[in-house]
């Protein structure tokens, strides 16, 4: 065997001059060479704008007057004085918190369904993937039409089953629910769309986790006489927890920083009831032209996100070690 290999090596011509070969084989240099392009790209287009964003937040730059003047924390004081900011912040937390819990729980259920064996799995997977793979503005448009104030098919069904439209009906005597017009319903609608859109992603992530659980572990627990719930709580859940945490992380980030759903469905309304930080920053910074304030609002997100991400990633690492 080794004789054959030696013969092969001897036969194979050296393809590169010695100097270049040594260079291409030096792992330390090579690692940097391979990494550099990505690192530079990201430094230029993420690092620089990030620093710029901090600069803008401390300045009076507007679309009409782009000259830079340092104003300290004035932008922050102004946004803190604005009730809409606090409302957006609260909404952002409500949207993210409620959707995250629902996304993780429903994602686990959906993952279990998708790894089960049944006929027609392909078509079910295709339909389940739709909400996540479709560009979010387009799926929001589909929902916008579904929640239309006059032609909503949900309202039609409610009217047919006698819950809506006649005096004394459970959901009121008006002919429509105005899903996006009533503050409470509008929030529920936005949350529903977020959950609907991100649950398939969570399910895919958790499928990865469920498939990685060795079958024999469950079997062993079963043979040892552990019942369904005991197996669930002492075997399955601890093993799935790291992946569930990753799913939660993705869910948090995508909900926390999204504005497409809000923008298309309600445009922040009615009366800022569904305004979130991202849409508010866009409204102030781009539509309103007040770059400094927009940047200050947008920056407010970052420490919270960073803390959440580090906490979740650390928890995942600890779970893997333990």
């Amino acid at each position, binding site marked *: 065997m080794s004789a054959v*290999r030696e013969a*092969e*090596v001897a036969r194979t011509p*050296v*393809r*590169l001059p010695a100097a270049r070969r040594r260079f291409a*084989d030096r*792992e*330390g240099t090579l*690692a940097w060479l*391979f*990494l550099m*392009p*990505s*690192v530079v790209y*990201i430094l230029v287009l993420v690092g620089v*704008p*990030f620093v*710029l964003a901090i600069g*803008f937040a401390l300045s009076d730059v507007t679309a009409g007057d*782009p000259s830079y003047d340092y104003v300290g924390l004035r932008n922050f004081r102004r946004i803190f004085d604005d009730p809409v900011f606090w409302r957006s912040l609260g909404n952002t937390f409500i949207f993210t918190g409620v959707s995250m819990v629902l996304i993780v729980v429903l994602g686990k259920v959906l993952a279990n*369904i998708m790894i089960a064996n*049944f006929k027609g799995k392909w078509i*079910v*997977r*295709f*339909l389940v*993937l*739709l*909400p996540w793979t*479709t*560009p*979010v*503005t*387009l*799926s929001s*448009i589909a929902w916008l039409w*579904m929640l239309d104030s*006059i*032609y909503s*098919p949900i309202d*039609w069904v409610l009217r047919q089953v006698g819950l809506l439209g006649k005096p004394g009906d459970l959901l009121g005597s008006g002919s429509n629910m105005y899903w996006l017009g009533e503050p409470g319903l509008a929030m529920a609608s936005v949350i529903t769309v977020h959950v*609907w859109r991100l*649950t*398939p992603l969570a399910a895919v992530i958790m499928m*990865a986790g469920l498939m990685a659980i060795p079958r024999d572990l469950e079997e062993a627990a079963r043979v040892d006489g552990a019942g369904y719930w005991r197996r669930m709580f002492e075997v399955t859940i601890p093993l799935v927890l790291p*992946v569930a945490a990753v799913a939660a992380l993705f869910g948090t*980030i995508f909900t926390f*920083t999204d*504005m*497409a759903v809000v923008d298309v469905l309600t445009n922040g309304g009615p009366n800022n009831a569904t305004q979130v*930080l991202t849409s508010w920053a*866009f409204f102030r*910074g*781009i539509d309103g032209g007040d*770059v400094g304030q927009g*940047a200050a609002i947008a920056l407010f997100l*970052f420490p919270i*996100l*960073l803390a959440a991400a580090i906490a979740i990633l650390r928890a995942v690492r600890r779970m893997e070690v333990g």
Partner: protein
Amino acid sequence: MVTTAAGYRRRYVASRVGVYLLAILAALLCAAPFLWSLITAFKQNRDLYNPQNNPFLFNRPATPDHITYLFQHTAFGTFAWNTLWVGVLVVGITLVLGLPAAYALARLDRPWAGWFGIGIFLVYLVPPSLLFLSLSRIVVAWGLQDSTWSLVLVYPTITIPVSVWLLIGFLKGIPKDIEEQAMVDGYSRVGAFIRAVVPLAFPGIVAVVVFAFTLTASEYIYALSFVSPTSQKVISTGVPTELVRGDVFFWQSLQAATVLVAVPIALVFNLFLDRFIAGFTQGAVKG
């Protein structure tokens, strides 16, 4: 004994029925808005705008007029084309830059590789919502405002971090012996990477391509803040802004656009779902 056997059988049948019911329910819940879009797309105005009509049925004959309208009288074709070429270029840039980076982190045994991997992932968490204001200034400074090229430039910042992270997973799944053998056969490290590792990682690379393309097609904030002329828009901004004139929604055409975009992407994604899951396991849990 017979009764227990029958009991087992009954329980088995019940669980099978349960699986099918749950699967159908999940599929319907996920697809409901699209099914509703599909019905809407073919409806006549007089059918659609009558709240008395059963919205799930065709009360008047179906018509393809609104789909023809979408292609002939709106810029939908332009949006789709822009989304496509932006996506292809972005995916290309992502692979050219991301694949070597992932290889360096997965294989070249640097002590800092683990931390670097997490650092790159954290970049993915810096959201567009934080950067769009300053990036739009940079785009203006480079003279790319109102051009689709601005998106080609900026989108790799979203796709590179997450692709590197997934690719690390795929590359770690390839046995080291294969490169070692290639190097014994006279290839340099770079040669071994290009000729032995990349072909083996190909299925994983395709999964990353599909994922990165989906990300670029969905992006909204950058597309909305950098580009405003109709001819330069992509689907995610063009459809919601251009198919609504004032307060007039072209509902059937809008819904047709949604279905036309949603179905092909989901179909392709479904083909690579298992690959994607494999990459995710390795990238996420063993990263």
